[in-house]
């Protein structure tokens, strides 16, 4: 099952490599990992998307908690949460595709943020599966380039991760 683990860690040099190293050393899956500082400049917030059986996920959370730099950690998937990811897709926009791409982008609530004679660049946010669905809906031959940020997540309502 897919899990979204969100954690706060000390914004120290090498913090990211401690997490990345842990995943590779223990053979855990890592689907995506995003990290950036928070409003408190001493803290970074990291979102890790991983998959595995419950025992493995339990070990992952325990091992992450064991890292000295990790301040707090939550498995967002355990309760209500919101997941968002940003994707930029550059597509062919020539001939019949020009209209088609615009329509598809509208249907999926994307925004065209760069236009040339031959291409559109579409910006889209949403949960990972929505972005997957958009890519699936496009003609593979029309996709020139995609770039995704990996998921960010936050708990619903008063579920708050703070130090």
């Amino acid at each position, binding site marked *: 099952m897919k899990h979204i683990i969100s954690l706060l860690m000390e914004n120290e*040099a*090498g913090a990211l490599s401690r997490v990345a190293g842990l995943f590779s050393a223990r053979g855990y899956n890592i689907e995506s990992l995003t990290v950036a500082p928070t409003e408190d400049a001493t803290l970074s917030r990291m979102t890790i998307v991983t998959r595995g059986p419950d025992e493995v996920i339990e070990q992952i959370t325990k091992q992450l*908690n064991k890292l000295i730099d990790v301040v707090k950690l939550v498995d967002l998937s355990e309760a209500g949460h919101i997941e968002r990811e940003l994707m930029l897709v550059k597509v062919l926009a020539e001939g019949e595709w020009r209209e088609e791409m615009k329509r598809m982008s509208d249907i999926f609530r994307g925004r065209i943020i760069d236009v040339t004679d031959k291409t559109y660049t579409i910006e889209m946010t949403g949960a990972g599966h929505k972005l997957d669905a958009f890519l699936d809906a496009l003609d593979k031959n029309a996709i020139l380039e995609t770039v995704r940020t990996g998921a960010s997540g936050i708990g619903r309502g008063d579920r708050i991760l703070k130090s």
Partner: protein
Amino acid sequence: MELTGAEITVRCLAEEGVEYVFGYPGGAVLNIYDAIYQQDKFKHVLVRHEQAAVHAADGYARATGRTGVALVTSGPGATNAVTGIATAYMDSIPLVIISGQVPTPAIGMDAFQEVDTVGITRPCVKHNFLVKDIRDLANTFKKAFYIAATGRPGPVLVDIPKDITQFTTEFSYPKKVSLRSYNPVTKGHSGQIKRAVQMLLEAKRPMIYAGGGVILSDAAPQLTELARLLGFPCTNTLMGLGGFPASDPLSVGMLGMHGTYEANMAVQHSDVLVAIGARFDDRVIGSPEHFYQEERKIIHIDIDPSSISKRVRVDVPIVGNVPEVLAEMIKLIKASKERPDQAALKTWLTQIELWRSRDCLKYDRHSDIIKPQFVLEKLHEITRGDAFITSDVGQHQMWAAQFYKFDKPRRWINSGGLGTMGFGLPAAMGVQLAHPGAMVACVTGEGSIQMNIQELATCKQFNIPLKIILLNNRYLGMVRQWQEFFYGERYAESYMDTLPDFVKLAEAYGHAGRRIDNPAEVEDALKWAFSAEMKEKLVFLDFRTDQSENVYPMIPGGKGLSEMILV
């Protein structure tokens, strides 16, 4: 007054009450060595290889419970130290390792003797630091010592660029340290402790399985009290030997791959198993699938939550400091009117005695060739079971664990987790320096001893009168044993040809030595080594032992606890 980074380093070590620093100088740490030269708060022990510096600090830490300190230079100094650091990490030994680094502006320039020490050591330290601002130096040391010794202990590395050791700043050593991201628990969950006690009181076939955590947390008195109060049998892991007295009738010895028949059978057939500071590793319980074939309830007490439910599922997890949790359990049991079912317990202990009567550690006592087991029994007898024993890795290690019956904690010092050949001699140096008057013996093999033999020079320089018990069978014995059992007796590269004359070698380093070929000479040689006459000398005993002897019992890799090969 402002101090240099080097002076601050030395002052921090003094503030921490450090007694010995084990190290080796080099370019990046010259300033620190200059500061060491000008102080008298601690002693520096010059090893002959950085790996030995870390092992010696490790031996010191294991024998005392205090944090060991090693100091190495950048580049090769640090990489040589890595084996020592990984050894300490696997066995949760509190160390602070100081490594020199190239000056800050040179970092990343592929400078002379530059290596990414923090990167290389990251997977085998509890934590590490690269000090980039001299104002952080004292605080970093405070954190390093705090992290190393608290919670589940472990090695912490502090990497200091050379320019930081030259810069100056005001020095004040922090009195306290608090880290918002690191707050190890100590007290166990009281509800879980109550559940555990109830489970123990209702047990019909109880078993206590105690590991290295009991030694590390100094919980031997509480463990012993608990086992005796309940009358429950106890087995110790390789790392836990001495946590419960081997001479107590309730002791069934070591369990695991080379554990006793009675210990492995009792754990496999117990109905309530309480694991204390142990982690169900592959060398201890073998295959989890086989382990699950018998039903039992498991109580697991450990300070590290990630050790719980890692290899086996447990019924009552208790995260906490072992002595505190055990003391709480003892209190509850004493306050309770309930007692375990005595009839069931008697039946169970009778069964265990039946298993014990299998005499799984028997060997040929009438052999013309020296049996390694015999040497260890004699070593136990002549040292009255009161020596500190370090070992290397292999057959001799298992025989020492089986035959030197440890009654006290911190007496058995070996690399259990990483299995580092070359650990024994430098570790023994740290032990002997920590306990100058004590009997310290390094039980080793001719393969292992050659991995850090250069430390004989360190022993000479610092008058370290340890005794080397070499069980010399001219084979990498454990490799040979596996080749005999599992590789059709094809002894690939396990025979040690062209061994040195160890007696002459010891003498060349300025020590005394003796070669022993006959069983009849064993006792005399050991008596000589531990005699008053040799008290101040390192003695190297080269016992020529049986080449074909194997360690029994043995659970083949991937097999279960009750699937032992017996003699």
